[in-house]
């Protein structure tokens, strides 16, 4: 007999390993304690459905009472998740698979959050400019939704993805989204390699050398610090604006110091907390915890700002210093 | 000779040495005594345990029982390094050189002259100076010093090994078949080296299957049979017949079979017509190998005999000219083509080219014959084991079973496996490159009888050999090579050592 065998087991499977998910784990742990359930938390080695699936299968077969999954490819995974949802209560988090029969979704709408990034860019470069997007991969759901959101926001109301050469540097091909010229017309990917994230930014800096009104956008958590590292090495801090995504501690610190303009965060701590809370309640037949719609992202800048209603969501604009403190406290509980 | 005086303590003594390998008792209770400044020859059949004993003396193996004394003190070498330090140096039967390094590097490998203390910076000047001297001792030109070993022919590699041993502070030099790939000329130079060592007080253990050499250079002979001492011979009683009797346990009378072969001089089976091959000499070469004859081919080390045979066997691409079998042109671009045409090669270096050492005797016997053992899609087990049994019996291959890894057999028995795999194919032309390298007298006699019988039945045999005795004893006709070219041809009645040597060194036909 195992000393845990009496407890209810709640499982959380993320889409990959990342400090982002450490925050989520912290939240999940907290909720597990409060609800007196056993938590199984797993960050699979790579962001690939083929790595995630065996873990989900193993846990479902072992008889967990509820499972939360960060979906990688909603369309592809729907069928499998439907099977899962038939056996145990399923919560999707971070990325949704709406048709899977999940009981609810915990997470922001990545595309909406991407639009918030676009708005930051617009605010920094109101008269247009040259931008570059950096991301790990564009084959996952969030890897597609975030750049799409950014560009959609930039494109309104004028040009949308019109092919063009850069007005000052004709060798640079790209696309116009509104007044913004996207170099190469695509996001530069680094396949999750942090070192390559730096070299990608560095090479881009070399190419756009001398171009005014630059803004680099990093859409995975590690991208903004990587961009900043390259910008520093070229002594271009302040000249090249940086906008990020997610709450990487380095990013938050650099926002406070003014080297990065801002970032859009998802509050993964609450993803973990809410997922476990909902599932634990569900086991007891309590459906009241279920969430409706998607959660609100937050926009972090140096100086913060008042809350606003945007597209039906109540959005907070905390100061970077404050938010950094919150994150740090959250992380402490997982010992990171 | 003046060395008859009885020394006080022997230089090296081995007492009651036992050594077992899985399934094989290699040595049991072997005793050996080696006096200072003495050449002691060890003879015995293949698998008698000679190499094993030498490896024990040189610290490569540890004995299961028994003791070794050096100058009266018991010693136990935990590795070749310690043995070398104590002055016991072994030249292995198989070549052991780092062929990617230069000759000089190999001469000093493991004991480089260095400066700089722990940094062990090579003292290149000293290396170069000493290398020249060492090479000169074995008769290699100084120009070889900076050449990568892999570019040397086997004979020269063997000389490099010997030179390397000479470079140590050697007190006991063990040479395990040093002459198996040497021609007469180099062998004689080796005798001179041995004489000089002896004069300097060095003791030499000398293993050879060429009994004439033993007669010429040994002071004493120890004979091993089946891993046991089989007797000793003092200088005056060292004769071919005495040694053979002790080794084999019976008399071997007819050593070189001399069957009258009417077919000699018959139709050419294999014709090399004006061929030139890649890496060979510029001038074309023409040669016939006739049915039912044994064509001997002589030449010095590096004369290009091996290369020529490889060109015929499809290893070296032909640049021009034509090969004909029974008068019909054949295309040979890889060994399988030659084999399909009935031309097979017993290569010079059996470990490299002849055998898949870790695999079994049976595996090796079957390998080129799989197309005949059922189809390629299904090897008929019964037929295969019949073949194994037949050839193991026929060639008297000494092995516990057909499943024994061939690399664990003694050298001579390995050689017999190579014969077996080819003879099982019923070839038309049998190319033999150093056919009895490392083969004991008894087995040699068997192989000679076999070759002779096959030739008598119409097989064309092309025998490349550096062993003068073998050449003179077996050949129906001899072709002598010099610098990649045919220097001359000698029919049986004009065949003698002097004529061969003259042609081989570039002299005129008598």
């Amino acid at each position: 007999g195992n000393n845990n065998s009496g407890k209810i087991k709640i499982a959380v499977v993320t889409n990959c390993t990342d400090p982002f998910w450490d925050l989520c784990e912290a939240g999940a742990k907290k909720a597990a304690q409060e609800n007196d359930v056993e938590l199984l938390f797993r960050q699979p080695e790579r962001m690939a459905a083929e790595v995630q699936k065996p873990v989900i299968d193993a846990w479902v077969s072992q008889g967990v009472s509820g499972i939360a999954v960060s979906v990688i490819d909603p369309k592809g995974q729907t069928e499998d998740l439907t099977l899962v949802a038939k056996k145990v209560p399923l919560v999707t988090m971070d990325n949704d698979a709406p048709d899977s029969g999940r009981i609810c979704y915990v997470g922001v709408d990545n595309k909406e959050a991407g639009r918030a990034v676009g708005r930051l860019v617009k605010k920094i470069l109101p008269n247009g400019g040259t931008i570059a997007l950096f991301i790990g991969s564009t084959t996952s759901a969030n890897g597609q939704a975030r750049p799409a959101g950014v560009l959609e926001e930039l494109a309104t109301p004028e040009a949308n993805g019109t092919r063009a050469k850069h007005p000052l540097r004709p060798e640079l091909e790209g696309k116009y989204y509104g007044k913004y010229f996207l170099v190469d017309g695509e996001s530069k990917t680094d396949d999750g390699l942090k070192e390559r994230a730096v070299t990608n930014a560095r090479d881009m800096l070399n190419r756009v050398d001398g171009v005014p009104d630059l803004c680099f956008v990093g859409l995975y958590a590690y991208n903004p610090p990587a961009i900043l590292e390259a910008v520093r090495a070229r002594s271009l801090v302040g000249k090249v604006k940086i906008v990020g995504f997610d709450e990487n501690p380095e990013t938050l610190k650099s926002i406070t110091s003014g080297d990065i303009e801002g970032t859009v965060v998802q509050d993964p701590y609450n993803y973990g907390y809410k997922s476990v809370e909902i599932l634990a309640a569900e086991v007891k037949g309590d459906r009241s915890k279920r969430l409706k719609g998607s959660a609100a992202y937050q926009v972090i800048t140096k100086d913060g700002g008042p809350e606003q209603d945007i597209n039906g969501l109540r959005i907070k604009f905390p100061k970077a210093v404050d938010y950094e403190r919150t994150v740090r406290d959250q992380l402490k509980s997982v010992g990171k | 000779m003046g060395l008859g005086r009885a020394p006080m303590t022997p230089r090296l003594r081995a007492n009651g040495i036992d050594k077992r390998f899985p399934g094989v008792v290699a040595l049991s209770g072997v005793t050996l005594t080696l006096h200072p400044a003495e050449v002691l020859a060890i003879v015995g059949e293949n698998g008698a345990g000679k190499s094993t004993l030498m490896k024990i003396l040189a610290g490569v193996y540890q004995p299961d029982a028994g003791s070794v004394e050096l100058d009266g003190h018991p010693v136990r070498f935990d590795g070749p390094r310690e043995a070398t330090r104590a002055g016991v140096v072994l030249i292995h039967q198989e070549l052991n050189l780092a062929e990617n390094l230069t000759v000089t590097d190999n001469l000093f490998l493991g004991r480089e002259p260095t400066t700089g203390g722990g940094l062990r910076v090579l003292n290149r000047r000293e290396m170069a100076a000493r290398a020249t001297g060492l090479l000169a001792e074995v008769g290699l030109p100084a120009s070889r010093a900076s050449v990568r070993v892999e570019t040397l022919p086997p004979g020269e590699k063997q000389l490099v090994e010997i030179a390397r041993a000479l470079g140590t502070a050697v007190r006991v030099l063990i040479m395990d078949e040093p002459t198996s790939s040497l021609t007469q000329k180099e062998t004689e130079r080796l005798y001179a080296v041995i004489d000089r060592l002896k004069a300097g007080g060095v003791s030499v253990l000398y293993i050879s299957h060429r009994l004439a050499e033993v007669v010429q250079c040994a002071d004493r002979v120890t004979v091993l049979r089946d891993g046991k001492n089989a007797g000793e011979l003092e200088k005056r009683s060292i004769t071919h017949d005495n040694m053979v009797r002790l080794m084999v346990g019976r008399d071997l009378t007819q050593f070189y079979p001399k069957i009258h072969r009417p077919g000699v001089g018959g139709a050419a089976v294999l014709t090399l017509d004006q061929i030139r091959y890649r890496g060979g000499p510029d001038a074309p070469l023409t040669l016939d190998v006739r049915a039912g004859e044994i064509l001997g081919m002589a030449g010095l080390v590096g004369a290009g005999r091996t290369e020529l045979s490889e060109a015929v066997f499809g290893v070296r691409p032909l640049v021009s000219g034509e090969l004909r079998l029974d008068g019909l042109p054949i295309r040979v671009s890889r060994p399988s083509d030659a084999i399909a045409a009935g031309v097979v090669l017993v290569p010079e270096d059996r470990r490299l080219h002849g055998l898949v050492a870790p695999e079994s005797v049976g595996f090796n016997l079957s390998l080129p014959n799989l197309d005949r053992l059922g189809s390629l899609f299904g090897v008929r087990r019964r037929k295969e084991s019949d073949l194994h049994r037949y050839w193991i019996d026929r060639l008297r291959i000494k092995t516990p079973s057909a499943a024994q890894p061939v690399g664990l057999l003694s050298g001579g028995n390995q050689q017999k496996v190579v014969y077996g795999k080819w003879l099982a194919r019923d070839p038309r032309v049998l190319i033999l490159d150093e056919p009895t390298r490392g083969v004991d007298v008894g087995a040699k006699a068997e192989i000679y009888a076999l070759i002779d019988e096959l030739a008598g039945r119409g097989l064309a045999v092309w025998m490349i050999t550096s062993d003068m005795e073998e050449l003179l004893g077996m050949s129906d006709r001899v072709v002598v090579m010099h610098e990649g070219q045919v220097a001359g041809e000698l029919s049986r009645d004009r065949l003698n050592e002097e004529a061969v040597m003259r042609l081989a060194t570039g002299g005129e036909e008598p």
Partner: protein
Amino acid sequence: MMRILGVLALLTALYAGLVGTYLDNAPAHEPASKTQERIQGNLVDVANIQGRYGVIALGAALVIITGGIDLSIGAVVGCSAVLFGVLMQSGIHPFVAVPLVVLCGAVVGLGNGLLITQLKLQPFLVTLCGMFVYRGAARLLAGTVSRSQTIEMQPDFSSALQSVRYFLVGKNIKGELEFPAEFILLLVLAGVVGFFLHRTAYGRYWYAIGHNELAAKYAGVNVSRQRVAVYVICSALSALAGVLLFLDMPSIQSDSGGQYLELYAILGAVLGGCSLRGGEGTAVGMVLGAMVLPVLENLVSIRGLKSDVIPAVIGLTLLVGTIVDEFIRRRSRLNR
């Protein structure tokens, strides 16, 4: 023979651990039959994955037996999976697409083999370049492919795709795993490979080449042809594994599908008794070797190990397994 004992011991220990974990963790009230059912279900899941690993391990092992190596396996798996999806989406019937993909795999292997034998390039280098090239090819073909996306685009293929899926992967129309079809496929393929390896002339040639290429050549073996054949088989099997991956997994991302599988395949082959020096290995060993990693991964998941601990546990288990294996072999050699 002895080479198999070590891996057998390892597997036995792992399976015992797996079953033990289930029994320990079984809820107090659960009837034994139900626990057994869950164990079985999990073993079938694992067997299916083992089957897929095994298919590539067979290919890797053949290449290793001839003294070569193939680092492009993972990329070929990924590329084939993507190709399979793209072919069907472009209107090629599944029954045609499967052999076509395997054929493409064979062509890839032919390329590898010819570069290695004709241009005498090092296998490690050729297949490492291949790893980039085939990964790149996958990315050029598509971003993400999945069954559901394919059926959406080609609804006609739905039932054909379903039957292919049933026979190759064992999943019924609802996506439930009915039997470990991939493992059965592995057994069939291992039988074929074993037949070639142990009963035909070709097997002898491969062993001979692996031990001593020159001696094989001098014995009349057409070394180049055999080498090429082995690379062709390896890549064709990898392509087949790509098909399996597509059918089994919810979705395939072109930038990461099949990643690392070359290492797992080689690991399986080596655990199963192949030596990277060539010339050694048995078909039974390959199957057993390939079974190790999936059951090990399953075990660590089931036991709910922390994500951070998992790599170390896997590495140490494999290492201990290898050491045990070596000792068993050494002992058996002494006692012979």
